[in-house]
């Protein structure tokens, strides 16, 4: 149990996918203009990551031991198609949830955070439960980073900012400061 909590907190704060591994930066910088959109993108991310965790476990247990060179190709294709499959199921079963996540799902599938999750889970040798907890933590971490950046960006809109730093340069420097703050969490479990 303690191990599972450690995996979750580590993925959420200490080894945050966006702020420590730089995964999923394109949506991080692209969609973080508005708080509401950023939060919904984060939720969609958690959703896709949980599916990814399950797919990774299935592939790692039954397919990849026999054909290790197919690792990358099978990860991408299986994840993309199962997300599409689940997307269709959600559309049928709960149109409201689909409306909330809808447009983001196809975007996220080829996001580096998703493939990164599959690769890291494999490298760390997690089983099913650990893998799912890791996916949940990673997804929540991406959501946290997105919401934090979006919140700060909404505030910067009312400030008087020189033209030369507007846009990506400013977002990157804000992200750097958030990332520096997150490094403080590294001391959380050391003692």
């Amino acid at each position: 149990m303690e191990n599972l909590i450690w995996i979750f907190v580590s993925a959420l704060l200490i080894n945050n996918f966006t702020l420590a591994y730089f995964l999923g930066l394109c949506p991080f910088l692209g969609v973080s203009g508005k708080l509401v959109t950023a939060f919904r993108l984060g939720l969609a991310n958690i959703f896709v990551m949980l599916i990814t965790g399950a797919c990774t476990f299935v592939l790692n247990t039954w397919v990849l031991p026999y054909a290790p060179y197919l690792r990358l190709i099978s990860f991408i294709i299986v994840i993309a198609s199962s997300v599409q499959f689940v997307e269709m199921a959600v559309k049928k079963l709960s149109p409201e949830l689909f409306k909330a996540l809808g447009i983001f799902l196809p975007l996220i599938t080829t996001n580096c955070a998703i493939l990164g999750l599959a690769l890291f889970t494999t490298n760390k040798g997690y089983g099913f439960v650990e893998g799912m907890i890791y996916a949940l933590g990673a997804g929540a971490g991406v959501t946290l980073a997105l919401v934090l950046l979006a919140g700060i960006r909404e505030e910067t809109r009312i400030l008087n900012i020189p033209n030369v730093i507007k846009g990506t340069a400013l977002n990157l420097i804000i992200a750097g400061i958030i990332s520096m703050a997150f490094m403080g969490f590294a001391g959380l479990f050391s003692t």
Partner: protein
Amino acid sequence: MTELENRSQSSEEFLKGLWKENPVFISVLGMCPALAVTNTAINSLAMGLATTFVLVCSSILVSLLRSIIPKQVRITAYIIIIATFVTVVDFSLAAFTPTIHKELGAFIALIVVNCLILGRQEAFASKNKVGLSVLDALGMSLGFTFAMLCIGIPREILGSGSLFNMPLFGESFEPWIVMILPPGGFFMLGFLLLGFNWYTQRKEKNAKILDA
């Protein structure tokens, strides 16, 4: 088209990736490798070269197959082609330079989802002849490697006081550790983009003054 025009178009396709449409500084593509592995100059160079290999090879293949691949499944086809070459790079690096492979870790495999590569296939290689596609891919990936070095060299000098693992300063140098940690990546690219913005805006302003 005359031969001269032809040649100028070729050099145009090659040069645009280096500066005018630099993938990292102008289009802000392929950022996750650009920030994640640029903590030393060697890693930046290795990542740049690996990306060059994948981009050039997949551009050749996509350009050759451009009339065969059906439109509906083209993205899937591109991804499979890219993933194949990334697997080749992954296995060769593991065999020839195990230390670099270990340091770059999962980021070699993550070249597959580098938007720069898929972007070039969709925007250029799928519409142009093999020769032009190779030039475009070479220019873009050289621009990418150049950007990686622009980020990696200062980060290594400031963060560990060395360049390509050779110490530059004496014993008394106090390394600025945060530069080789994740926040350093964000800051470095942020400041480089700031410089780029400043340069372009100044050029526009000067052009306006000259016009008036």
